[in-house]
Structures are given as C-alpha cells and as structure tokens.
C-alpha cells in the first residue's frame, strides 16, 4: 500500500523526520516537499534506508516517489 506524506511548506529537518516515522515498514512512499534542499535531504535519507528515489515536479512542489529496492 502506498503511503503519502505531505511535507509541503515544512523546512528541514521536519520533512525528513516525517519520512523517518513512516519509512520503517513501508515499501512504496509518495513524499510531497516544496524545496530543492528538502528533496536532497530526503533523498539522502531514503537512499540510506535502501529506497530508490525518483523526483518529478518543479519549483514550488516536488513529488518524490520512494520504492524499496
């Protein structure tokens, strides 16, 4: 089951903390953030937990798709 985490408008480290809470048992996560630095921080964290990360969208709203490898 896909989990969606809405972290729009939140500044780091809050998006990563929200991701950290759900990443444990998840295999498919959609994460919404709105800044490039949040994308970078969340990507590093997700990859360190064994997820493949793809990013779509642009300035203002990024949709990050995280899939367990």
């Amino acid at each position, binding site marked *: 089951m896909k*989990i*969606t*985490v*809405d972290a*729009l*408008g*939140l*500044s*780091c*480290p*809050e998006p*990563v*903390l*929200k991701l*950290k*809470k*759900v990443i*444990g*048992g998840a295999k498919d996560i959609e994460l919404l953030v*709105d*800044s*490039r*630095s949040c*994308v*970078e*921080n969340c*990507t*590093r*964290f997700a*990859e*360190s937990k064994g997820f493949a*990360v793809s*990013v779509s969208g*642009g*300035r*203002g709203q990024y949709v990050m798709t995280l899939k367990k490898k």
Partner: protein
Amino acid sequence: MKKTWSKWSVIIAGVIVGLVAVGLGHYGNPGNMQLCIACFIRDTTGGLGLQTAGPQYIRPELIGILLGAFIISIVRKEHAPKGGSSPLTRFILGVCVMVGALIFLGCPLRMVLRIAGGDLNAVVGLIGFVGGILTGIVFLNKGFSLKRNYDQPAIEGVAFPAINVLLLILLVAAPAFIFFSEKGPGAMKAPILISLAGGLIVGAVAQRSRLCFVSGTRDAVLFKDFGMLLCYAAICVVVLVANLISGKFKLGFAEQPIAHTEWLWNILGLYLVGFGSTLLGGCPMRQMILAGSGNSDSAITVLGFVAGAAISHNFGLASSAAGTTANGRVAFVICVAVVFIIAFCNTKKSSSAKGAAA
C-alpha cells in the same frame, strides 16, 4: 536532477569558505573574526546607529552573502517567496540567538575560525553549542514545529535583497547619519570591494552546498548523515594551515583576539545559540542564505538578530575581552527560559506512523 551532494562537494565548499576567510583576514578583517555572521550583523546594526555602544560598520560581507545566495537561487530556479511560519516566534528566537552569540562573542562560523586560530575558549564553547543542538533535537523528536509556510507575492522574496542593495549604497555614499568606528574591531576591515566579493562567493557556495553549522551535528544525530561535518573540518583545516604559515596561530585561553576566558559563559552562550538555531531550522549563516533565497521567515529571523544586537549593546548585555557583564548573565537566563517556553509551546506529542502520513 542531481539529487545529493557528494562528500567532495561539501569539502570543496568548506575549502572555498576557509580560503575566503583567510583572504578577508589578510586584507584587514579582525583576528579570528575574518567572517562572523553575528559580529558583522552587530557591526552593521552599529553602522546604522541602532546601537551606539559597540563596533559600527556596515559590513559588505553580509550584503555579499545575501546577494550571492539571491543570485545563485535565481540562476538555479530555486528562488521562491515563502513565509508565514510563525514569524514573530522566529523574530524572538533570532533575538535570543544573538544575545547568546554576543555573550560568547561569535556565531558558529566564528567558533570554527577561533578554533582554527588556537583559541581554546572556542573549543570549550563547542561543548555548549553541541549541547544546545542536542536539546533542540529532543524537542524535534517530540514533534516540535513552527508550522508550515505558504507561497507569498514576489515582492516578499525580493524585499530583503533590495534592502541589502540599499545598505551597500549607504555604505559607499557614507552620508553623515551612517556610523563608522574609528578604532577597535569595527575599524578593522578589508576594502569594500574585496569584502563584497568574498561575501558573494561565500553566499553562492553556501546556497549550493546548504552550508549550515547546525545541520551537521543535527543530521549526524538524527539521521546518521555525517556529510556536513566534513565541511566544517575543511574550513577549520584551511584556516588552521593559513594561521600556522602566517604565524597567527596561538594556542591557549588567554589574550585571544576579541574573546574572553569565562569558560562557563562561553559554554552557555553557545548553548543558547545551538538550541535556538536548531528550533529555527538553521544557524545564522543558513538564515542569511534562506533570506536571500526568498524565505521571508528567515528575513524576519535576521531582523531578530539585528534587534538582538541592538539590545545587547544598548543594554550592556554583550561580552568584551574583559568578560561577560551582569546584565548579559541575567539576559541569558531570560532568553534561555524564553527559548524553552517556545520549544514546549510548539511541541505536540509525537503522532503515530499512520497519523504522520497525510
């Protein structure tokens, strides 16, 4: 899109920032204070006449840092006007962080530069800084949040850079109502163009590398992400080597440039800086970079730093080489209480995993 930085990119960022600091010191900035966000905001506050008891000089480095971040964020299409995330709370935290920084005598960047100069008081202060970050992390883990921000009109994102252009004009035009220190740290300065260029480089590099003196420790503890710590190490090594070569390195506690030896207050001052900055989401340098990138909450925070600097010198809170002041020690107690109240009031009990997922 390249998603992550490599270890080498943050090391290179640290080397560049370190080299700029060395250059600014060579061209006239004060010893172990080649570049300091807190001290330079204090100097600028004095230059505008908002405080009259401390150094007075509109520091071009700060203008450069802000405009460097502004330009690079525009070029990279990252500039986005955002705001509305507890602005008054951020202002108050900014005041408290500045009070702490001026008790220690420096921001986290200057702490690194002081360590690289052999100032062991800064090594002691580092203990407090890390302690403050760890305290902030406790609240972050319990659900602390200053709530989300929202899109703002374009003018909200360019107002602060425009103010900085105005400051540059005032500095160069030097009308009678702008103040310039004739002696002391405020009179020790690199030429304007060199300072401005140095600031532009640091602002651009810090925007690209996300340089933040809080996030390194915070993310190492929270996420076991140690990358940013390499950046601090790079800055420290570059400045240390330059100090050793030029003979400016002096190991010890006593008679360090613009520093005092009250170890407890060096710890406590930086504890306040670390705690407040963690709640703000970034150190004073990071707030400058975000303000340049369109974040008006960070611009408000910088204005809080300005107010904190004015209060610190007008009310006799700021330390000097002679040590802390009685007023400063009382202010510390008040500020740390205020930061704890803000932390408690904005922390809700951590929600479950399901609740966290929207």
